[in-house]
Structures are given as C-alpha cells and as structure tokens.
C-alpha cells in the first residue's frame, strides 16, 4: 500500500494523509511550510550546579560540502518560567566544534533551565543545494542537533554526554511541537534504584502550558508539573525502586535524567535521555 501511494501520489499528499491517519499522535504541527530558511533546534537543558558545560556543535554546511565554511553557532537561554534571559554566539569554520558555554546568569537562579541552538551563515543551504544542481528542491530544512557535556565537579577531564531533548523550535521562536487531544503515557525502559538520586528535567517546546503527571508505578504516587512555554521544571526522586511513567498531551514526553546530580565527585554521575 505504501509503495503504491508513493508511486502515484505526491509526497505532500502522502504526508497529509499520514498526518490524518495518525491524528492522535502528532509530534509536529503541519501549519508552516518548511524551506531552506527554516531551522529546527532541539531543546537543551542547562544545569546550574555543573562545574562547566560544553556543547558539541555540527557545521552542516561544511559536512555537506566537505569544505570549511564559516558559521555562527547561536545559543538562546530561557529561564525556568520560559522568559528569554541571555544569548551567546560562537564563530567557527570547523566541521564540529566543542564550545564552552558561559553561565547565562550573573547570579544563578534555578537549578535547571533550557536553551536552543541555531546556526547562521552567509552561505545559505539554498546556495549549497543550488551549486549541486538541486535548486528545485524545497521542503527541507536543517535540524540543529548537537550534544551537551555536563562536568559534575571541578578539575575533571570528563563529563556526561547527551543529545538534546525533543524541540522543533526555530530561530524566530516558532514552535512546531504540538499537543494531541488524547494523552500519551511514556515509560522509559529504565530501573530506578533506591540507593541513587535522580533529577527528572522536563522542558516545554510547545506554545501552550504543558501539564505532566509523573506516575511512580510501584507506589501509586502521582506528581504534577505545570510548565510554561519554553519553561523548565524538574522532579527530584529519592528512595524509590522501579519504573516511572509520564502522562501528557505531547506525543512524546521524555525528560532528561540526571543520576546522582551535580555537584558530584563520587564518579557515579550520569545524564541520559529517557
């Protein structure tokens, strides 16, 4: 059936059809066109208690062409309530760059908050595709992914690396992530252990208030989090063994998990995506 549809119908029609069939499971909205000027950023988490945080950024223009092309990596930070607090820029022509991020607060407020990453360059993706004779192609944009390295204590040569959280946020703050009418329950396949401490950090990439219910499946305990647009909230978990589920109207609701959070010099710090 899929092959038949792909053969006889345009991609846009199939995409729309798929959107209708999966109307209960929408990740992104369909309302805005994608083009070379669009970019989509993951939603990354800043931890104020870490000694330092580095960002590993990809230079997509250089990766496509195989040549060094000057780009600016931009980082925009939002506080716990989702208000814009700071931006930082970093210029490079490397294929990948490890960037030491400055703390966005002069006087730290809040344990966790969030930031996006987008790339600017005088060389547009359209220009690159045009040079390769693909000028008619549209409906494509860059995803600014990247990885964060969290260093849990001073004088450490290594930290915990993790990729960004689900975002879909463009540089002009357009939010493609969308709500569904029915709630989803996401359960990470992970066993939380009572001898460890965890911070479960959620951020909200949508344009509405995000309500999350955290179910501790072994105790019937439920915790509610209300997160404003671009905001960040966390739940500290201690003395619990078992699984945890997250209920929300997002198609995928996955927190970043800090295991034995910073400051930590015990060597048992870890950060991972649920």
């Amino acid at each position, binding site marked *: 059936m899929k092959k038949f549809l792909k053969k006889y119908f345009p991609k846009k029609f199939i995409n729309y059809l798929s959107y209708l069939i999966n109307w209960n499971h929408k*990740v992104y909205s369909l309302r805005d066109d994608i083009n070379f000027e669009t970019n989509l950023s993951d939603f990354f988490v800043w931890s104020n208690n870490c000694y330092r945080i580095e960002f590993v950024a990809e230079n997509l223009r250089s990766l496509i062409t195989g040549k060094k092309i000057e780009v600016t990596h931009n980082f925009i930070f939002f506080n716990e309530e989702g208000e814009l607090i700071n931006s930082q820029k970093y210029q490079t022509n490397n294929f990948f760059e490890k960037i030491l991020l400055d703390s966005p607060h002069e006087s730290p407020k809040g344990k966790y908050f969030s930031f996006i990453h987008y790339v600017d360059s005088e060389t547009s993706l359209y220009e690159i595709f045009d040079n390769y004779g693909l000028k008619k192609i549209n409906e494509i944009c860059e995803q600014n992914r990247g990885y964060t390295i969290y260093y849990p204590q001073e004088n450490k040569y290594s930290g915990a690396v993790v990729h960004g959280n689900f975002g879909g946020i463009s540089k002009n703050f357009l939010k493609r992530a969308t709500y569904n009418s029915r709630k989803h329950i996401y359960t990470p396949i992970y066993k939380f252990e009572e001898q460890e401490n965890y911070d479960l950090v959620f951020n909200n990439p949508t344009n509405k208030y995000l309500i999350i219910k955290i179910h501790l499946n072994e105790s019937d305990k439920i915790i509610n989090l209300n997160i404003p647009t671009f905001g960040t909230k966390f739940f500290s978990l201690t003395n619990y063994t078992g699984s945890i589920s997250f209920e929300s109207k997002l198609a995928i609701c996955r927190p970043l998990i800090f295991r034995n959070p910073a400051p930590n*010099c015990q060597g048992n710090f870890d950060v991972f995506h649920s």
Partner: protein
Amino acid sequence: MSSFFPVPPTINIGELSLEIYGSTTFLNIPNNRLKDTIIGKSYNKIIYLGLYALEKCNWSLIKIFKTYPYEYAQVERKDFEVYPNQMLVLVPQKNNNFPKTPKKLPKPDSLRIDKSPVAERCSLNFYFKKSITSYQGEYPFEMASLEKSSFLSFDALKQTYNSKEVVNFIIFMNINVSSDLQGEVKINVFNPCNKSLKKEIIAKRNSFTIHRIQEENNREKINSVDFYTSKDSSFIPINLTLNLKTNQLSAEHTHPPTELFYGLNKMDGVRLLKKTWL
C-alpha cells in the same frame, strides 16, 4: 518497527587489567502509548525474551526470560560464557516458540499497542567498578535485515585528551539476522580537512568492534574530529568515555546523517552529505 535488544560488550582496559562490562535492562511495557480510556487499550501481555549468541554457523538460543507486564529482565553479559565482543542479542516475542539453532534470527514482535511514536527500546548499560552509564537503545529489525548498507560517523563526542585519566572508545555495533554474515568490513578513519586516510579499522559484521580512540590521536589535539566511513556495512556507533581517576563513565550514540535534516525531501540532503564522504 520492532527491534532487537543487544547486550553490550565487555571492554578490557589493558593498562589496568580491569574491564567495563555490559548489561541490558528490559521492561515489559510499551514505552509509549495512549492513555487507557473506555475505547483505549490496556496492557496485559506476557513477553518472552530469547537470548541468542552468534556461533560459527548459526545463532544459538542460550536462555529464555519470561516477563509479566511491568516486570523487568536484567541480562548481564558476565553471567554467560561468551567472548567479550561476541554478539549477544535479546529477541522479544509474544509466544515462547524460539528456534534453538536458527540460521536467521527470528523476527522480534512489537510491543506497541497503538501508533504512538518512538522506537521500542531497552536500557543498554556499561559498568566499571561502582559506576554505571546507561542509554536507551535498540537495533531496529529493518536495519538488521539489510545485506548491504553504508556508514558515516564522527568521533566528536570524545572527551578531553589526558591519557593518564581519560580513555575514549567507539563501539561499532552491527547485527544482521543472517548468521552467515560474519565477515570482516573495513572502516576508514580519515581527517576531514584534507580527506587523508589515517587508519583502517577491521570491523566484523554481527559483532561489537571496539575501537580505542586515544591510541590514534595521541599526537593531535583532541578537538580534531575524525570521520569514520564504510561502503559495505552500517553500524550503530556508541561513544564511551571512562575517567580512570574517578571511574565515571559516559555513553551516547551519535546522530545518523538523517537526523541532521527535516522535511519531506530530507533524503536529498542526506544523499548529498553521504556523496561527499563515501
């Protein structure tokens, strides 16, 4: 899309005569689903996990785990008599009818009960002394069914070079359903700035190939990222860092090129990118 759940390898830290060892945690629950309603579905399936090891000519079933809803299965590599990088993989199924010595791995069943997005995953864990690092991973059945594919990755996640304190690894993971595919595959390691070949890694299909990065880069500053390519086979690369002083571990996979674009025509971007490097 259903998935296999590999059990990570054992990694020897030569200078310490110590090992990082792998385990896999499975939980019998669809990891994403619609909330139960009057018309929604509840979950009450028993899932069996067939643990297979790759032998010379076939897959060999070495244990079956039975899990009830919300029940865990923890599979530790050190509990089985297998080589450190021998492929050890869990196959989830709804019925307990695993073949004992198949030439092809049985198809894993999906745990999904609706069309909620996200791949079916388990927790892949690495242990060193009392430290653990985990990531949610899987090996998709479709990827394991490809006879020929290609690979492009980078070692951008390696951490600060300090040979006395930090060691970095890339684990190239490859699974194919067919036990006949066990041959060697070349992975080219090169400097992207001048595209000069620095090294060839001989990886194996249906195996974990462990590459210690530090040995290759001891004369260069750590920020010079190497590219890794293969025209013959795909791999899932896991970047693993160990701090020998604090014992801290960190594991993460790198994004495949398909994750760098979005939109209906994203494969045009991927093709362009791969053409440059492969």
